[in-house]
C-alpha cells in the first residue's frame, strides 16, 4: 500500500480529523443521554434546509448550505422535543417522524431545484452521501472554526453539562438552568452533525456520533477521559479512512471511515480496559 500524501489528501485528512474529533466529543453526550439516534434524525432533517438555502440565495457556497442545514436540523430537534413533551408520542417515533418527513420535504425541494435552469444538483447531493473528496480548503476552515467553537463552549460549561446529564434534579437545585443547558447542548450537537454531513453523508452520520463514544466508554470510567478518547477515535478513523480510500481509488471514503470505526468498536468491546468483555472475565477470576 503506497500512501502518497499530496495536498488534496492532506486537506481531506484534516477535514475528517476535525469532524471525527467534534462528533466524537459531542457524541459522548448524545450516547450518555440516550439520544444516540438524534444524529440520524438531524442529519436527515437537514436536507430541506440545504435546498431552501440554495433556493433563497442561489449559491452553492458551503457556508450558506451549512447554515441552511443547521437551521433545519435545529428546528427538527426542537419539534422532536415539543412532540415528546406535549403528546403521547414517544421519542423514537418523534425522531422517526421528523427524520422521514423532513427528508421527504427535502426531496421535493431537490427535485424542484433540478428543474431550474441554472441548477445542477450534484453539489447538493454530496450532502446526502458525503464526498470527502470534494471538500475544499475553505470548507475545512469553516468546519474547523465551528468545531473549535463547539469544543470551547463544551469546555466552558463542562460542569453543567456533566451534571445535567447525570442528575438533572440535583442540577436544578444547584441553580443550573437545566432546560436552557439542554438546549445549548442540542445546538452543539446539531452543529457537530451538520459539519460532518459533507464527509460521510446522511446515512452514516449516525455512526460517527455513536461509535467513537461507545468505544471510548469501554476504556475508562471518567467522563473527561471518555470524551477525549472518543474524539481521538473519531479523528483516527477519519484519517485512516482517508488514507485507505486514497490508496485504493475505487473505495468511497465515507463507508470506509465507518468500517474503520466499527473495527475500533469491536476491539474496544472486547479488550477495553475498563468495561471490555475480556477484562470482565479476567476480573471475575
Amino acid at each position: 500500500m503506497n500512501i502518497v500524501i499530496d495536498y488534496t489528501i492532506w486537506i481531506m485528512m484534516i477535514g475528517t480529523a476535525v469532524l471525527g474529533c467534534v462528533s466524537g466529543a459531542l457524541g459522548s453526550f448524545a450516547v450518555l443521554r440516550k439520544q444516540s439516534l438524534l444524529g440520524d434524525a438531524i442529519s436527515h432533517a437537514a436536507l430541506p434546509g440545504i435546498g431552501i438555502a440554495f433556493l433563497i440565495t442561489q449559491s452553492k457556497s458551503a457556508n450558506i448550505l451549512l447554515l441552511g442545514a443547521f437551521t433545519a436540523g435545529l428546528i427538527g430537534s426542537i419539534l422532536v422535543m415539543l412532540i415528546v413533551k406535549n403528546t403521547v408520542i414517544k421519542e423514537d417515533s418523534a425522531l422517526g417522524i421528523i427524520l422521514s418527513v423532513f427528508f421527504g420535504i427535502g426531496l421535493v425541494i431537490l427535485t424542484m431545484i433540478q428543474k431550474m435552469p441554472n441548477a445542477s444538483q450534484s453539489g447538493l447531493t454530496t450532502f446526502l452521501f458525503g464526498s470527502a473528496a470534494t471538500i475544499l480548503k475553505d470548507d475545512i476552515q469553516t468546519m474547523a472554526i465551528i468545531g473549535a467553537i463547539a469544543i470551547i463552549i463544551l469546555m466552558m460549561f463542562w460542569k453543567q453539562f456533566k451534571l445535567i446529564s447525570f442528575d438533572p434534579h440535583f442540577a436544578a437545585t444547584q441553580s443550573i438552568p437545566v432546560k436552557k443547558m439542554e438546549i445549548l447542548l442540542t445546538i452543539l450537537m446539531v452543529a457537530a452533525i451538520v459539519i460532518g454531513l459533507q464527509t460521510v453523508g446522511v446515512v452514516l452520520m449516525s455512526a460517527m456520533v455513536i461509535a467513537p463514544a461507545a468505544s471510548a466508554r469501554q476504556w475508562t470510567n471518567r467522563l473527561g477521559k471518555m470524551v477525549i478518547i472518543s474524539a481521538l477515535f473519531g479523528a483516527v478513523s477519519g484519517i485512516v479512512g482517508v488514507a485507505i480510500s486514497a490508496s485504493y481509488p475505487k473505495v468511497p471514503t465515507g463507508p470506509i471511515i465507518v468500517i474503520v470505526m466499527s473495527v475500533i468498536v469491536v476491539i474496544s468491546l472486547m479488550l477495553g480496559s475498563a468495561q471490555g468483555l475480556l477484562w470482565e472475565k479476567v476480573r471475575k477470576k
Partner: protein
Amino acid sequence: MSDQLEIAIIACMVSSACVLPGVFLVLRRVALMSDAISHAILLGIVAMFFWTKNLQSLWLMAGATGAGILTVMLTEALINSRKLKKDAAIGLVFPLFFSLGVLGITMFAGNIHIDTDAVLLGEIAFAPFNRLVINGIDVGPMAMWMIGVTLVINASLVTLFYKELKLMTFDSALGKALGFSQALIHYGLMTMVSITSVAAFDAVGSILVVALMITPAATAYLLTQRLPVMIGIGLAVGILASLLGYTAAYFLDASIAGCIAATTGIMFILALIFSPHHGLLMKFLLKQHQKQEFAAKMLVVQLLSHENTSLEDQENTVDHLEKHMNWHPEFAKKITQFALNERLISHSNGLLKLTELGRETAKAALRM
C-alpha cells in the same frame, strides 16, 4: 390499466403494507428499527447479487430479509451485552451494514443498476415499466405483485397473531407469565419489517418506507388508544397520504416519494392540532375553562376547611381569598362569580358560604 392508476395502486398497497407492522413498531417503542432495517438491507441485496450473479427479485428479497434479521440479531446482542443502550445499538449496526453494501457496489458492481441513489430515494414513477411476465403474459408491474404479496403476508400475520401481538405489546408481564416469548414477537415483527422494506424499496426507497411505517401509526395514536381503531385509522391515513401525495407530485412535477412522505407529515400535524381529545386546539379552548373550574374547586375546598371554625368570619371573605390564594383581585372576582353561577356558594354579608353542592364538590376533591 393506465400508468398513473398503477402507480396510485402501488402507492396505496405500499402504505398499507407498511402501516401494519408500523403500528406495532410505534407502540413497542422501536420505531427507528424501520430506519435501520431499510438501510441495512442494502448489504443483503449486494451480497445476494454477488452470490447469484443475477438481479432476480426473489433472490435479492431473500438476501435482504436475511440482512434485516441479522441486523436485529446483532443489535439485540449488543443490547444484551449491557455495554450499549438500545438507541446506541440500533444506530451502530445499520451504518456498518450499509457501508459494507455501498463498498460492495462501488468496488465491484459499478456498472450495475443498483445505485445508492435508488436505495434511498427509489423511483416509483418507473414501476410501471418493470413488468412481471409469466408464460408470456404481462400481468402487471413487478412492484405491484411484490407489494401485493407482502401486503397479504403482513395482513395474515397480523390477523393470525393479533392476540399475541396485543398482549405482548400492552401487558408483557402477563404475556410472559402465560408463556409467550417476547423475542419471538420481536423477531417476527422485524421480519415483517424486513420483507416490507425489501418489497417497497425498489419502488419507493428507504425513506418513504420509514415515513409510512411510523407517521400514519403515530397520527392514529394521537387520535385513539384502542388498537383495532388505531390500525384502521393508520391504514386510512396511509392511503389518503399516498393518494394526496401522488396528486401533489403530479402537479408539482416533483419526487413522488418525497411528496407522500411530506403529506404524512401534514396529516400528523393536522391530527396534532385538531384531535378532539388531546389536540392543541382543544387544549387551548379548554384551558380557560379548566382554569376557572379548578380555581372554583380550590375555593370550595378552602371554604370547607374553615367552615364552622372560629376563624370563619375572617377567612371566608373575598378579600382574604385574594391574599391567601395569591389571586389577582380581578381573578378572584371572576372566580367568585363563576362559583356563584355554578351554585357552589352563596354570598351574604361579605361572607361566602357553601351550598350543599359546593360541600359535595369540596369533599370529592379531597377524596373523602
